[in-house]
């Protein structure tokens, strides 16, 4: 069913609406504090949001398959601690090797989630609620509750995300690259399209020869690998690793997806939605102090935004989104 009205079109193209909201916010904050919309500051805001963007993209894939990964923040903290301790023990290791290692560790943790969902068949919310506290506890066991501070890390370990290239940090470039890879993956590869199909209508997906569990497993692996990579980037960007790194960050990641119009019921969503949702949250976080609102408001505002976003999405979802396999109308 096509909605013909202009407003209908706008709402069904959630990304446009969200993009317009973001520009309105920029204009609003910019009129109060012009330096905020300067190129240098915007690059800084983007750098601050880069990790959220990457995690939201990966989480989107998981949510598309009707699952959820609540363990990403704990995975990030664990991997971050692993590579930080590895760096202390073997200072000669190059940053590139560390990056690859963090992806590997994250992948293993993600694959563990995925296997429990795929082969054992435990609901993903239970699995990741469990591994969320298990992985967080492992950080404590690994570090004995100690901090790894900046002076213990080697310069090359710390330099990678901060190095700048064309006025943007390497961290920002990694986020941009990952977004593009994800876009190509979800739009043009067979596996990427299958992920939509599996979440949109699992039964039809089975009859068309797709293994639902296996695709869920793949998305958990991707989510884990991205979380692991972000673990290294986080620890080296903030130059500290401790047990509570990114505590409760998984909620922001899920929130970014929900705001970006990714349906928790699976099958509907796009990379741009996830990216814009993450940027939206990042802007709120960075703009609040600028316009003189206490950071204590941040939690409530993001909560309110999530609730409003799901209400708006629930209405537009009924008009249908991008679906590979449609459900029959009863």
């Amino acid at each position: 069913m096509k909605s013909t009205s202009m407003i209908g079109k706008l709402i069904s193209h959630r990304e446009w609406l969200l993009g317009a909201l973001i520009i309105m916010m920029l204009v609003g904050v910019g009129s109060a504090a012009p330096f905020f919309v300067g190129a240098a500051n915007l690059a800084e805001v983007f750098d601050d949001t880069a990790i959220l963007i990457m995690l939201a993209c990966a989480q989107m894939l998981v949510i598309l398959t009707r699952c959820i990964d609540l363990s990403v923040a704990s995975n990030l903290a664990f991997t971050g601690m692993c590579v930080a301790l590895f760096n202390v023990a073997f200072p000669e290791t190059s940053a590139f090797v560390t990056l690859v290692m963090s992806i590997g560790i994250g992948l293993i943790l993600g694959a563990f989630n995925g296997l429990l969902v795929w082969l054992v068949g435990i609901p993903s919310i239970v699995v990741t609620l469990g591994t969320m506290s298990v992985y967080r506890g492992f950080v404590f066991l690994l570090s004995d509750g100690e901090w790894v501070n900046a002076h213990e890390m080697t310069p090359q370990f710390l330099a990678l995300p901060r190095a700048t290239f064309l006025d943007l940090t390497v961290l920002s470039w990694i986020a941009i690259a990952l977004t593009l890879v994800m876009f190509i993956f979800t739009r043009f590869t067979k596996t990427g399209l299958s992920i939509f199909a599996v979440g949109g209508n699992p039964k039809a997906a089975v009859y068309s020869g797709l293994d639902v569990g296996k695709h869920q497993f793949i998305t958990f692996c991707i989510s884990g690998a991205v979380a692991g990579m972000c673990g290294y980037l986080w620890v080296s960007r903030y130059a500290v690793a401790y047990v509570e790194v990114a505590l409760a960050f998984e909620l922001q990641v899920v929130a970014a997806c929900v705001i970006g119009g990714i349906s928790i019921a699976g099958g509907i969503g796009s990379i741009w939605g996830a990216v814009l949702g993450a940027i939206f949250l990042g802007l709120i976080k960075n703009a609040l102090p600028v316009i003189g609102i206490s950071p204590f408001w941040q939690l409530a505002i993001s909560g309110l935004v999530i609730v409003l976003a799901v209400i708006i999405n629930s209405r537009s979802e009924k008009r249908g989104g991008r679906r590979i396999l449609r459900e029959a109308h009863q």
Partner: protein
Amino acid sequence: MTKEISRELPDSLNGDLRSKLMRWETLLMVFVAIAFFTNTQLSPYFLDPWSLSDATFNFTEKAIIALPMALLIIARDIDLSVASTIALASVTMGFANSMGAGPIELAMIGMAVGAVAGFVNGWIITKFDIPAIVVTIGTMSLYRGIAYIVLGDDVYRSYPDGFAFFGQGYVWGVVSFEFVLFLCLAVVFGVLLHKTTFGRRVYAIGNNPTAALFSGINVKRHRLFLFTLVGLFAGVAAVLLTSRIGSTRPSIAMGWELEVITMVVLGGVNIMGGSGSIVGVFIAVFLMGLVTFGMGLMNVPGIVMSIFTGLLLILVIGTPIIWRRILSARKLRSQKQG
């Protein structure tokens, strides 16, 4: 490969002795006995009545939320915002206290805030037909966020003397008010779920909401009621907790939602809805309490206990699924041979 989670019918009528022995509740009792015995070995002071009474304090408040949460999960919903509701209710009580409210008024306010928070969850979920998990993730941030707005990094202290009774008072000897309240509520919820029409409807909704609707149950109103009920008892828990520790910070009860849900699931309630019993949850509450108390005796830090809680959650749900699969594979093989 389809993976329809096969759902057992709730409350099968007459089983043989073997199936009764194999019941989840029996298994839990065995674990409780083991945990109890281990604790007596760990500390010679464990069997002291006061020590046993102290052991109940660290799980009673969570257990009081676990009871309505069991009903909610049986009805195929979930509420992740309970811990944040506690924070909101506690902060409101602190605020009311600074305006000069008395102990009874404070308790009423705490419970009312909880009920309203639960109602808001339920209203959004049923009105707009959105999955409970997303809405309660949102209100989880929202409710605790409001607590942070009100309190920032401040603390509410100096509650009136009479208010301390709820969380610290004893009804009879070493038996605390909290614990008696929990026992009474367990009976009430047991009767509500297992002996009333309402309870049967909760099972019906959890097993098949569409069929429940067609058989004349007002599904939305029942769900709304259950969310309000969970909120109300989160409010009760907020009263008890605030009274017990005598102060309010916005970070109060952080992470409790996980422990409450673990208790419910450990008690044999199917996370996909449709089955479970209050007896199971009741025993699971004691198991969790005994195990965490035992680890406390061994000076295990809280974060390491959370590894245990997480693994327990996964094992408890994973084991029966694997077990059932082995059984059905064996049955299939014997059918082929026969």
